């Protein structure tokens, strides 16, 4: 596994310093290897820090704090977009982003990872050329290379994104004022997050997507709750259609012509129709690599490409493209490369979606439980039944536990509402430890907390279990697609 030839030698070279790259580099350094990270931006962190995970979540937090006046019911009535100082919210984001970037940079420095500022491309399977901003080039060799170059918003050919009137999920963060109205093309995670946050801030948001409901990969009850809250904020979801033409009238309105003949008019339009891998300029062919039909780098369960010493991790290998999963992919890739036991592969990973209300999920949903196990018992706890929900004024959410048909084995948990992305970890650890549903009944939870919802939901299952002749086998439940990215690197070689 050693690299011969010219250029400075490293045991490990990582291209990209986002969640996957950073964890890969730190893992390599902690294993005593000489590690270099190549980053095209001046600061470390990648799109996750600058334009993705961190800023969008920080915006959400700022929006919730700014607008949510739950202690004074009715106080949010009549909030107009112009009342919200979006510029101030965005500046708050900058502070959060800078702080996180600095933290990541210090972590790399502390582990003596060599940071190289520039754009990398392959000269051969073991050689990289790093072109600095001033055009100068530096050649390096590495025994192991990890590609973690991330992704960027997809720009569909039929929509001209000018970053002024028609925005993508990067440029929407440059808003200096809130538009009165916004059309969002897309029904996925990014579309739903921005749509719900901006609707909460008073913008008249219309989502348009081919899917009949947003976040279709989630439990139906969860998305129905999300949709109800979104509509209560003034949002609108137009499913089963798409925009085939988008144009700015030159005056102040963006028009989106839909496939059903309708035309939507709004001040701004956000295109959130997926992301594409950042692979241009890498000269993958020089490394003997190629993209698959989905435009991502194919890897095996250890994130290894067809070149045994080259790995890829994070968005660049496709779904689930979640920061947390990317970090683990980066770490496991380097463990595999250097023969370090990575620990048991994660059986499952949680999904956290920073919409308003927050959504989180782990394990399988009801329809999948029916499909796999022939039936399911489901227990629910509404947040308005939990004291903490009443105290906080966050009463619209719920927690749903999915158990096998006997109501004993926990299969999944789904939460929508305040604190969902934190709350889900309780279920995750219960699933990892193979705890029975009754563990939530037999153990004591702090009171008052949202975690009490676990106990309430488990008691609901216990009650249904007692009425075994009335199992909650909802025959009408639609089958959900298989969960993505719960094991290792998610995308297996040759998998579509």
């Amino acid at each position, binding site marked *: 596994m050693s690299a011969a030839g010219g250029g400075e030698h490293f045991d490990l070279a990582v291209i990209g310093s986002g969640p996957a790259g950073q964890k890969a580099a730190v893992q390599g350094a902690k294993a005593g290897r000489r590690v270099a990270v190549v980053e095209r*931006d001046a600061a470390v962190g990648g799109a996750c820090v600058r334009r993705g995970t961190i800023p969008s979540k920080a915006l959400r937090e700022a929006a919730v704090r700014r607008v949510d006046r739950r202690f004074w019911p009715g106080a949010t009535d009549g909030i107009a977009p112009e009342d919200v100082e979006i510029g101030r919210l965005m500046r708050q984001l900058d502070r959060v982003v800078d702080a996180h970037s600095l933290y990541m940079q210090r972590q790399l420095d502390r582990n003596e990872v060599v940071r190289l500022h520039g754009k990398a491309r392959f000269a051969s399977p073991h050689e990289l050329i790093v072109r600095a901003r001033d055009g100068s080039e530096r050649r390096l060799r590495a025994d192991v290379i990890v590609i973690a170059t991330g992704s960027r918003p997809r720009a569909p050919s039929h929509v001209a994104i000018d970053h*002024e009137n028609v925005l993508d999920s990067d440029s929407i963060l440059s808003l200096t004022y809130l538009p009165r109205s916004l059309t969002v093309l897309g029904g996925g995670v990014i579309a739903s997050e921005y749509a719900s946050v901006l609707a909460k801030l008073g913008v008249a948001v219309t989502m348009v997507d081919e899917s009949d409901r947003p976040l279709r990969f989630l439990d139906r009850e969860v998305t129905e709750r999300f949709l109800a809250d979104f509509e209560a904020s003034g949002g609108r979801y137009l499913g089963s259609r798409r925009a085939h033409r988008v144009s700015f009238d*030159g005056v102040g309105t963006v028009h989106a012509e839909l496939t059903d003949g309708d035309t939507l008019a709004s001040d701004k339009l956000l295109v959130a129709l997926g992301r594409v891998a950042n692979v241009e300029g890498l000269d993958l062919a020089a490394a003997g690599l190629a993209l698959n039909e989905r435009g991502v780098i194919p890897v095996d369960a250890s994130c290894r490409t067809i070149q045994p010493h080259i790995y890829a991790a994070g968005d660049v290998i496709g779904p689930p493209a979640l920061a947390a999963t990317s970090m683990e992919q980066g770490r496991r890739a380097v463990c595999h490369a250097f023969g370090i036991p990575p620990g048991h592969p994660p059986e499952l990973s949680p999904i956290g979606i920073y919409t308003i209300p927050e959504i989180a999920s782990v394990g399988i949903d009801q329809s999948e439980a029916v499909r796999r196990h022939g039936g399911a018992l489901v227990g629910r706890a509404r947040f308005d039944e939990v004291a903490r929900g009443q105290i906080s004024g966050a009463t619209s959410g719920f927690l749903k536990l999915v158990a096998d048909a006997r109501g004993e084995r926990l299969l999944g948990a789904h939460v929508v509402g305040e604190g969902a992305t934190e709350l889900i970890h309780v279920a995750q650890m219960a699933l990892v430890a193979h705890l029975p549903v009754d563990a939530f009944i037999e153990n004591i939870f702090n009171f008052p907390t949202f975690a009490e919802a676990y106990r309430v939901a488990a008691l609901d299952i216990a009650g249904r279990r007692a009425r075994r002749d009335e199992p909650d086998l909802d025959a009408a439940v639609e089958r959900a697609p298989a969960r993505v990215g719960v094991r290792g690197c998610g995308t297996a070689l040759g998998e579509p």
Partner: protein
Amino acid sequence: MSTPTAEAPGLAPACEPATVVRPSGPADGSEAATGIRTTLAERLQSGDVDLPQLPEAAAEVLAATQDVDADARRLVALLDRDPALASHLLRVANAPAYAPRSAIVSLRQAVTHLGVRTVGELALAASLRSGLVVDARHAGDLRAIWAHAAASGGFAREAARLLRAPVEAAFLCGLLHTIGKPVVLRASLELAKEAGVALPPDDLRALVDELHAPAGRLLATSWKLPAAVVAAIATCAAYQRTDEPEPMITALAARLATFLLGPGLEADGLLDHPVFADLNLYPEDVAGLVAKADAVRGLADACAG
């Protein structure tokens, strides 16, 4: 982030240090220039400067375009009241920079073709130009100032697109970041006239370059220009002092404008400015901005013509 360096000799500085108001003149300045510099600097520091009023048309156009409810009818109605402004706008709208598919013959057509915001910005530039006049002998200097301002605005907008920064604010910041220059130009000429001396052209330019930022800041505050514009005027030359994106983008745009209207964007030295590194611009990024040169030049010609 490094400290901006001085521009190449013989070129108008992209941005000037915002807070430098020195009572003493440069060693190579003429005696007359030194005296005028001292007087003007003191007046700027104390705010005792005769600032021009924001031209009424400019004020209304600015208000109209800053309004979230801005619409074409209101803008057209405003412009209809000022025939000189309207005819200037029609000329600009027909300039190659805006590539009209057919001749633009009405203000409404111009607004539809260019957009409310662009027409508003052009109208603002034109009305400011007409409101900030100087002695006819210095009309050329003023034209050069406006051309540079317009080109800065054009490049700023493109840079903002590239950098995913606020596009709408960028043009205005670029356009107005040297709004203090006509003020200093006029004030310097008046002081020279009072003193009965003639200012050598180089000294006059040096005065304008040195003192325009504090003058612009006073003017922007007096005219209640948007905060982003005030920040661009005040800190464009020392953008490290602020977290706002506009001053840095304005500094970049001004640099590009200086070379576009001077030695050319292919000339050596363009990249010898820390703003390119501070914005992490790679050669291909700069090339993308340079590719907009024709459109930006057209805008500058139209605005300054």
